[in-house]
């Protein structure tokens, strides 16, 4: 099975965020970019499928600027991906998620893809738009919020479950398929040192992102704001548990107004 996994370079969760001086971007110097969260899950899922379906290959694809995009692709190779493609965005990557999906679709169309795996949402912009947009652009069905996925070799189809407001939906689908994975169902593996060292020399195919579509509308960031730092809890004094409960319920209703 030919599996494509899309990974995005995202600032580490622990990094302190800083707004750039013009206010329209988060200062890229201030952050370290890694492969995180849902994308780690997507890579893990790709590798599990590869291990369970003989003759499978995993192709990692990432759109973005140097050097962060190549770095996350090397991380994906160190984890076990067979092949990697860097779509060079130039210094100012598109921030509209549909533009990103267009860039990914252009790179994925010419390569074999029985399954395209993405994270449910990226750790930074949290749009959760790219997977569905990619499905439309590739004219392939897509499903987001997928919590598990396996290949039923006898029936030649995927079986997966997807979280929705109604509960867990079970689906069956043949190839091709686009899936946005929701994490928290497995512990992604970590790369071993020899694989990390080897990944530094692995070849990465580079393609240049096509010019953005002229007729499409898009949105752009005009401002980033950081919330005022939380000043610490107002501690509620009490002598008995009952008093604690009464005082807390009172402030939550009257001061914080969080429930009637």
């Amino acid at each position, binding site marked *: 099975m030919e599996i494509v996994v899309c990974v995005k370079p995202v600032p580490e*969760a622990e990094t302190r965020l800083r707004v750039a001086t013009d206010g329209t971007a*988060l200062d890229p110097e201030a952050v370290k970019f890694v492969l995180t*969260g849902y994308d780690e899950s997507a890579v893990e899922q790709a590798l599990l499928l590869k291990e369970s379906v003989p003759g499978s290959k995993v192709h990692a694809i990432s759109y973005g600027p140097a050097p962060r995009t190549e770095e996350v692709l090397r991380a994906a190779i160190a984890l076990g991906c067979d092949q990697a493609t860097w779509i060079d965005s130039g210094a100012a990557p598109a921030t509209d998620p*549909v533009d990103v*999906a*267009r860039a990914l679709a252009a790179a994925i169309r010419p390569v074999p893809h029985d399954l395209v795996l993405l994270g449910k949402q990226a*750790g930074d912009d*949290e*749009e*959760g*738009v790219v*997977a*569905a*947009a*990619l*499905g*439309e652009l590739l004219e392939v*069905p*897509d*499903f*987001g919020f997928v919590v598990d996925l396996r290949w039923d070799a006898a029936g030649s189809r995927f079986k997966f479950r997807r*979280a*929705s*407001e*109604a*509960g867990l939906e*079970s*689906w*069956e689908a043949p190839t091709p*398929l686009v899936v946005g994975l929701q*994490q*928290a169902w497995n512990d992604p593996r970590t790369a071993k040192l020899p694989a990390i060292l080897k990944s530094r020399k692995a070849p990465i195919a580079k393609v240049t992102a096509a010019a953005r579509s002229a*007729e*499409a*509308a*898009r*949105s*752009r*960031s005009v*401002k*980033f*704001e*950081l*919330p005022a730092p*939380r000043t*610490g*809890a*107002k*501690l509620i004094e009490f002598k*008995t*548990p*009952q008093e*604690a*409960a*009464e005082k*807390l*319920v009172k402030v*939550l209703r009257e001061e914080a107004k*969080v*429930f009637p």
Partner: protein
Amino acid sequence: MSRRILVIGEPSAGGHLSGASLEAVGAALRLGGGAASVAGFAAGSTAAALAADFARVGVAEVYLTEEPRLDSAPLAGFVRAVATAIAESKPDVVLVGGTTFGRDFTGRCAALWNAAAATGVTEVTESDGGLRFRRPVFGGRATETREVEGGRAVLALRPHAFPLPAEAPVASKPHPIPLPELPPVLLAPHRAGVEAVTTGSGPALGDASIVVSGGRGLRAPEHFHLVEELAASLGAAVGASRAVTDAGWRPTSFQVGQTGRAVSPQLYVAVGISGAIQHIVGMISSRVIVAINSDASAPIFKVADYGLVGDLFQIVPALTSEVKRVRGIA
């Protein structure tokens, strides 16, 4: 400038317009400058009931694809029907509730319509004839304002961020929309079933307006019911720290944090949770945070709005009783 807005109707379990869809109507009525500029879309076997719900809050014009096949087909089919409604109704903006349905819808619809797309939107405003919206990013650690260039946008609204519209009944004016011919590949997936979630009777973690989470301070799995009872009294969803899910007290679907779910309810109550950074990033965007912890120096108190320093085994049952008392629950 008066914008035309198309609101996508999502059925709730009972076959009526979901709360998230109604909130989208509320947002549309404000943005479009009144009911005349707002139309609805509904599809599937409950489409007619949804049209009636739209009419109840003032939206007369509803594009309808009464096609039961859409109930259990991939979203791709639904989106093609919406595209036909868009071609007729010529909206500037499509609004949808930011449920799992709405979020999957947004990307697909925007790609088909060549529109800008965003999810998690908490505010939409006009600015010099353009459209501006705000949304939390980085797990709520920052807020981004974006501007739409070139009109057309599909926006999924964050649940609970917009007010419900007032009742304003009008006579419904349905416009039937046939389901367009679909490439067979788009209809190949097949839904085999739906199982109700096992997280108890409460709301889903991601969309709950109140979340109560428990941590290692509960000491053993047999004490976790304390958190669940408090959640039930508040009508809240139940969450957990990774210490709890790693120990197998609750499934990983309960986990809040960097490697679990990010939540942003109106109220987050952390019970016996120390407040490790990986937990904090998953709940920091909550509007009001309450911490209950016996250790006054626990880092959770740095991010909480209100703190109770004390023994959770005493405080939590008292709190559950007090909440039940004020809410009149036996």
